[in-house]
């Protein structure tokens, strides 16, 4: 064999298949990565197209009309929109302090050997499917709310001027408030795990110098840890808010599915996700289009909140690696 054929053989064996393999492999990796972008664009475009008939019929006032009347075929998104925002607000009011408490416990107070098991247990809460939360909420939590929690709220907070109006009327057990309570339990693990991670980015020197100056645990948290990880805490808050806004099954079970807007948090209501879950399978025509238009509003709402949250967390991770 001459050296030329040996060289050619080498090239055939290593170069050529390598180049073909590289092209195939790299090409498919590239196209699947692009697919992720296409997915987002596809979701956006398909929802815009789906929402058009409803917006064409009712115009922009669709967003702030509170009628939802399948008999007269007149629809407006205000009531579900209101319910979505209010139940998520309740979830955040309850969820943020509790998550903060757990995150502080895990980073500052917990003995090292318990840190892993407790973190895992809290994270497992996130693995429980949302339909289980819904079912549990309906059969276990709602009766307790109706019997004990809501009467107590009506008797105490309901008597305070201004905010009292939020806690009046009969205790139904199901309603926006109960939905908010369930949501707070569901977003808890997400908030805790991000907050714990950002608390851990606080350099130990800062923490230890504060302790060294005689600061108490609370003072270290208040003056060192929280200010240092402010952006991360806000990011965790918004990411959880995005989850709460779009949560479907858990809310559908306990929200009451009423399209009347009541001042009281204890009254039944509906959220965008719950009205979609309830009515979608039987809807057609304008009702279906209106439901899809609600879906579009939900998309805009959740993706802007999640987008902002991810942006903050991304800048944070770039800063601290």
């Amino acid at each position, binding site marked *: 064999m001459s050296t030329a054929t040996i060289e050619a053989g080498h090239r055939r064996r290593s170069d050529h298949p390598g180049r073909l393999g590289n092209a195939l492999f790299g090409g498919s*990796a590239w196209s699947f990565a692009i697919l992720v972008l296409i997915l987002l664009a596809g*979701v956006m475009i398909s*929802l815009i197209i789906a929402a058009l008939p409803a917006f064409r019929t009712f115009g922009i006032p669709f967003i702030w009309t509170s009628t939802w009347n399948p008999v007269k075929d007149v629809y407006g998104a205000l009531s579900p929109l209101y319910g979505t925002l209010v139940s998520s607000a309740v979830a955040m009011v309850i969820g943020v302090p509790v998550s903060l408490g757990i995150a502080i416990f895990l980073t500052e107070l917990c003995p090292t050997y318990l840190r892993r098991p*407790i973190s895992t247990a809290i994270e497992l809460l996130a693995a429980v499917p949302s339909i289980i939360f819904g079912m549990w909420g309906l059969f276990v939590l709602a009766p307790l709310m109706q019997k004990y929690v809501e009467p107590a709220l009506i008797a105490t907070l309901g008597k305070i001027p201004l905010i009292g109006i939020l806690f009046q009327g009969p205790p139904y057990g199901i309603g926006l408030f109960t939905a908010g309570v369930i949501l707070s339990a569901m977003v808890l693990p997400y908030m805790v795990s991000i907050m714990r991670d950002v608390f851990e980015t606080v350099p130990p020197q800062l923490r230890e110098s504060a302790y060294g100056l005689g600061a108490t645990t609370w003072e270290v948290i208040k003056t060192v840890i929280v200010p240092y990880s402010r952006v991360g805490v806000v990011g965790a808050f918004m990411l959880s808010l995005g989850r709460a806004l779009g949560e479907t099954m858990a809310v559908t079970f306990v929200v009451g599915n009423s399209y009347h807007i009541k001042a009281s948090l204890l009254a039944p209501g509906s959220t965008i996700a719950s009205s979609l879950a309830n009515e979608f399978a039987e809807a057609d025509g304008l009702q279906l289009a209106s439901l899809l238009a609600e879906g579009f509003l939900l998309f805009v709402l959740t993706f802007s909140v999640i987008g902002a949250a991810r942006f903050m967390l991304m800048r944070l991770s770039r800063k601290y690696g």
Partner: protein
Amino acid sequence: MTDATVDTERSRATRTVVQRRLRINRIVTSLSWTATGAGLFLLFWILTDLLLKGAGTLSINLFTMNTPPPGSAGGLLNAIIGSMLLTGVGIVIATPVGILAGTFLIEYGRGTKLAEIIRFVNDMLVSAPSIIVGLFVYQVIVAPAHHFSGWAGAVALAIIALPIIVRTTQDMLQLVPDGLREAAYALGAPKWRVIVVVSYRAAFQGILTGVLLAIARISGETAPLLFTALSNPGGSTDMNAPMATLPVVIYKFADTPYHDWQDLAWAGALLITFSVLILNIVARSFAPRTGK
């Protein structure tokens, strides 16, 4: 005033300040303990309720009979099969796509603007509400075909699993030291061989964790299936027809006045929750310890 009294005044003032600081600290730390206790108690409470209400209905019928009309005996066989089928097809679609997309982000596009954008969009999709995915698949597959189908359900589940797999693949490949890759290049291996033989092998356990977590996540999903696979009372395994799944059957059976349906819903809830939790724990055991 003598020096001595000033001193005691001052030390008394200091003492009250210190006492106040310690008191606030005690209050806050005990609140923090309480919050943690409440979180753990909640998990324990839900699991106990599932056991109490679901375990009584657990019997062989559950796995051998289809979902019944109210008032007659039955099980969840068709729903269990449907869930496994849709989850299986969904994960088979999402795994190669997700792994390759994650590979692009680290092995090809690292540091480029495109990879940055894709990574950001993927992170958004990870936390996107699953109901939105259901609506999208309804628009793209169900509405043009004019019927609900198992395929549509599987695609919806695949879209939910995809960003999870992309994310873990990307995180795990990032941990693979460049030295390993360079050693393989130095031996003359082409890039795709380096990725398959070196990077994937090094990141295998982490990627496996991601896939298992994605399975756990989609096997409990309900909302997207309401708009895609819907449900089917018969034992259909036709991917072109509507298909019953465990979560959707739980949803339909729980909110009814029929006690036998409610019992089945609890049994289904018990099954699905414990499978998902066990899957999660198994997945975690594969995860590489990152020192946390």
